[in-house]
């Protein structure tokens, strides 16, 4: 997973967000992506190889691992980060569309007037690309939509994790009696306490991001109302 490439994309789009949006991006990257890379991937690295069971029956381990871990935490978090970063692309697509319309209008108007030299037109086009759009009108609606979708994804993924693993704790021992296990067999999960600590850490970081998003929505609505 190329996190630096994702970060580069998000920073480019972030020019048009509010300051709360920029804080959200920093919190996301420091407390979610970095914690995921630094720690969680080494903690979950041996989750299947060290899933020890109290039986020699072939196939029992695979079946019980699959029953207890339908989707690994790491994959869920990576998917969450990818989905949560996507709504910003909505905003960047809208900004690109606006810029294209303005560029076309600029070229048409200078063509009709005929007095702007080539260099003047190039300078105008450059300022068009570099300017920061005001968050009003249709851009405001696009932005609010992207924030709401982000909130839904973040909340949805946290809920999915909670439902699939029955809470944020990780038990030491699970019991399983799927075929081909001969009877009720004990299974021991590797590093359950460390996994529980990181699950709680990442859930907290997600909640902070959700709070920031809600604050940004409230701020934008308040700004629009006062205008």
């Amino acid at each position, binding site marked *: 997973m190329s996190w630096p490439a994702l970060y580069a994309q998000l920073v480019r789009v972030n020019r048009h967000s509010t300051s709360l949006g920029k804080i959200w991006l920093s919190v996301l990257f420091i407390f979610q992506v970095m914690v995921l890379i630094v720690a969680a*991937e080494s903690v979950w690295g*041996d989750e299947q190889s060290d899933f020890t*069971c109290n*039986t020699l029956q072939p196939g029992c381990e695979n079946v019980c691992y699959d029953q207890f871990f339908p989707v690994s935490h790491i994959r869920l978090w990576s998917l969450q980060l990818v989905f949560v970063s996507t709504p910003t692309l909505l905003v960047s697509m809208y900004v690109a569309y606006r810029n294209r319309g303005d560029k076309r209008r600029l070229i048409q108007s200078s063509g009709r007037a005929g007095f702007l030299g080539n260099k003047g037109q190039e300078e105008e086009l450059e300022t068009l690309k570099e300017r920061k759009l005001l968050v009003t009108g249709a851009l405001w609606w696009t932005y609010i939509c992207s924030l709401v979708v982000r909130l839904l994804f973040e909340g949805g993924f946290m809920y999915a994790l909670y439902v699939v693993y029955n809470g944020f704790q990780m038990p030491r*021992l699970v019991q399983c009696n799927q075929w081909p296990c001969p009877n009720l067999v*004990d299974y021991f999960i*590797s*590093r359950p306490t*460390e996994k529980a600590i990181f699950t709680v850490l990442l859930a907290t970081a997600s909640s902070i991001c959700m709070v920031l998003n809600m604050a940004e929505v409230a701020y934008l609505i308040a700004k629009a109302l006062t205008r």
Partner: protein
Amino acid sequence: APLIPPTTNPEPKMNWASFYAVISGVNRHSTGIGRIWLSVLFIFRILVLVVAAESVWGDEKSGFTCNTQQPGCNSVCYDHFFPISHIRLWALQLILVSTPALLVAMHVAHRRHVDKRIYKLSGRTNPKDLEQIKTQKMKITGALWWTYVISLLFRIIFEVTFMYVFYMIYPGYKMIRLVKCDSYPCPNTVDCFVSRPTEKTVFTVFMLAVSGVCILLNIAEVVFLVGKACGKHLHNAGDSSIGAWIQQKLRFF
């Protein structure tokens, strides 16, 4: 060469180099002590963590051997004695301790933005002037002083908190060779042997010592900044009236 990290592990590793690049961007606006702190952080903590500590703790679970064949006893005893690995604690500590520097970076960016707007309003839209705003070094005065001191205090709080958490989880700096464990499913009290205990003790002592040095550097920086600010105010109050002093304070905001 002994300094090349092992390349056999295909897991994606943390890119500390880009992390350092981001943090050192703040370096231009720090004091001299702040730059020393950053070098100590990078050389003695991040580099040591990457080069040495990660290979020492790499086989902590596979090398944790128990004197029993009972399946699951190994996992359970390891989990009981090592709720969170030293390496993860240090990596989290490094991430958290570097975060307050970003507060300062955000404040500097905000001030630059305000300066740029003031320049534009006063009519100086010369691109060279705007470039100069980007590259000039901010003086640590006024609101930036407060942001800087608060970031230093947070840094100290985070370092001390992590050292306390470390002490709570692993009381004592020594790594024991042998632990006795009798959690289910171990049949009775079983001997379990930790892998590389002496090497781990050496690195633990080293990292704790460097943490202590960093805390001292941060405290020294706070004292230096407070001393400088007090000295400046006393000097100003000495040769101007209260009105002029208030005017000077307002100019910084």
